[in-house]
């Protein structure tokens, strides 16, 4: 798993546990029904709940908005890699890059929308692709740009992450989606 996926997992599990506890409490509460009418109080508190939710979302917004993947620059020492995607394979040139030096991927499609999903590095013992590191969509007729720095040497796989037709599942490391990263 990538770091982001780990964060999501932890946050989601905590949220689900809290949500489940509340659901369970509401379910069990019906075994001791209230005779007095408290609907008025609860309705008023709904405004407080609105504020709580809005603040929580605002905090999440502030905490994450600086990590959007847009508008990153690669710097003068960059390595430019051209990626051409087409039904159903990849052309990556050059497919050998150096670690710890920024890579600027310039991505194009010859036909339909594709998704550039970067996985790695390959686990040498199991042979499995590494975690999904980052991804970007490739729109036909446009040039996409993805800035990424590899910190570990090894073999990285590129898999298609936008449905592109009957060979979508073949757009992976066996059809050109392979990048080798070596120590600088």
């Amino acid at each position, binding site marked *: *798993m990538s770091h982001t*996926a780990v964060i*999501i997992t932890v*946050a*989601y599990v905590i949220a*689900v546990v809290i*949500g*489940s506890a509340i*659901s369970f409490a*509401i379910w069990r*509460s*019906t075994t*001791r029904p209230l005779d007095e009418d408290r*609907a008025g109080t*609860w*309705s*008023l508190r*709904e405004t407080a*709940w*609105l504020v709580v*939710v809005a603040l929580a*979302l*605002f905090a*999440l*917004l502030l905490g*994450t908005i600086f*990590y*959007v*993947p*847009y508008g990153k620059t690669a710097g003068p020492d960059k390595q430019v890699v051209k990626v051409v995607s*087409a*039904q*159903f*394979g990849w*052309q990556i040139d050059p497919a050998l890059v150096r670690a710890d030096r920024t890579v600027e991927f310039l991505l194009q499609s010859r036909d*339909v*929308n594709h*998704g550039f*999903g970067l996985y790695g590095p390959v686990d040498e013992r199991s042979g*499995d692709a590494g975690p*999904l590191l*980052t*991804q970007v969509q490739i*729109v*036909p007729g*446009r*040039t996409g*740009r993805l800035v990424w720095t590899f910190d570990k040497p090894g073999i990285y796989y590129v898999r298609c*992450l*936008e*449905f592109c*037709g*009957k*060979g*979508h*599942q073949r757009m*992976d490391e*066996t*059809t*050109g989606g392979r990048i080798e990263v070596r120590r600088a």
Partner: protein
Amino acid sequence: MTDERSRGIARGLTLRYLGASTAILAASGLLGVVLRWSQAVPQARVGDNFWYAMMTAHGLGTFVGWGAFAVMGLAWWVLAGVGFPTRGFGLAMARTTWWLMVLGVAGVVVTTLLMGFGASWVFLYPLPFFGAGAWGAWATGLFSFSVLLAGLAIVTWCFGILHTVCNKEALHAVSDNVFKRLGVSLGWGYLMPRTFATNPKPVPYAVIPLAVIGIDMIIATLPLAGLLVWQILQSAGWVGDANALFAKNILWWFGHPVVYLLLFPAVAVYYWLIPRYAGRDLVAGHVIAIAWTVAVIANVLVWAHHIYLDYPQGTLQAQINTAMQPMTFSLVLPSALSLYSLGFTIYRSRFRWTPASTALFFGLVGWLLAGLSGVVNATIALDVAVHNTLWIVGHFHHMAMLNIGLLIFGATYALLPELTGKALYSERMAWVHVWTTFVGGMLFFGLWLVQGLDGAPRRWSVLPSQYDTITRISLPVAFVLAAAQLLFFWNVIQTVRGKSGVATFDERGIPEPAAPPRGWTAPMAEAALVLVAVALAMAFAVGGYLVGRETGGGGGTTVTVPAGGGTTGGGGSATGDPANGAKLFASSGCGSCHTLAAAGAAGELGPSFDGNPRLTEALVVARVTKGKNAMPAFGDKLSEEDIQDLAAYLLQSAKK
């Protein structure tokens, strides 16, 4: 108020919508099981394009043909229940909707399963025109037309809903002005009682989400209809290419609100039924009207959260996407407030727990869980890790099946007796169905979340082998989930046939069980029989898989590459059957990457066959079998003979 005649009209509408959508669920749900089965068991693997065609039919069928169609139908009965009769223009629209939807879904079934259209339910432009030999212009044109019919069904439904909710008498509105009446139906009377005056009482809460979605789906659907018309014209060759990025925006302009076409009518049902089972009014402050006002605006301004990872150079897409993260967050508010209201309506009430109300309650839990995973997707920085992985598939199945689906089941159990006058066939069968659906669904969809966090790509007919373990674990759960739905279908059919006599209701209008369940009843025996049958089928399937694996030669076909002795290079003849090779050339999609004028192929990714001096039989056989760089290996997909045939065809037909 609704008189008996109006109730009869609404009853007829809701029953027709529910009947058709339940039938669609049976068919498209089955496709879902086959899809997962094909991923889990190599021996059960279907052809790649057929898998995608089934995926297209499953997506549109369950989401629109079942989920949306069912809640659209329930809306008529809810409106009648809160005093809004459907009549005149509204009724004509409601009836038109049914026909358009049924024809649209039928067209989708034909074009996907029979004509091979497999561009997924989002048919991301220009994919419909790049079928790679799997489908042609006719399929694209007819599919687009079918989806257009379903889209028009949504628009006519909206007109019917808006006509019904603007009914002056039912609203008790003071003003004749149609905009003021619409304002009343949106709940603005709670915020501005003078401008949106009613006499004597304000609008029932259940009306508000219906008015909201009635407005939004017209705004959302019309541009998509334009895109569909364009696709029809393009498939006929009358217009050229559209702008792909623009088309993507148009698609999601519709694609987000259509999710709420399922949710908002479902909320109306919750607002109406939960208070009935709780025996108290909906706990709601005026603030809920603010949330719905946010919803009516934000719902059509958040489409770009589906394309957060589209930001090609020289476009404004990155700015649009960034602006839409806070907009998307604001859409959490109506859900958060609704869950609060419904939660407190149940809290310490004399809630009557039946299969129906339990399904509704589980539906609320499903809503919460789907909402939480939705917040992850709505956050750009987090979306990078999960976009187009199976996490998304887990998220929207939580939403579609464990929120909307359970609501539809609960509403069916709650309302079928009052809609048909017949008692629910078996309360016990319903209990088993509701609990199995919730627990099985949590597990089955939860496994998708896990796979997605591990990077498993979505919409892959065959997943990379590293994900196989969880896929196989999930398969038995899928079978149990499907088996539980059989209980639902059987229960509904037997209820409609009147097997348990006339319905009776308690003082809150909650249907009473037909007979106190005692021990080993006939319905229980039937339920057990269904489960045993499914268990046996599963056992046979697993057994067959194991036997197949034993006798299948222990994995992989042994491929011997001819050592170049048989033929010499330079475009000589080869030993295979060129006619079969020609078929394989088309069916394997060679032409999408390679040029071969004889086959009308002009692919540019790989080397051209025409005028290629290096073309020899040995080279073709070696490359096709083992692959190289972008060229995939076909050694495990085509037999040795097939590859020889293909080589023969290429050598015969390539221009020298």
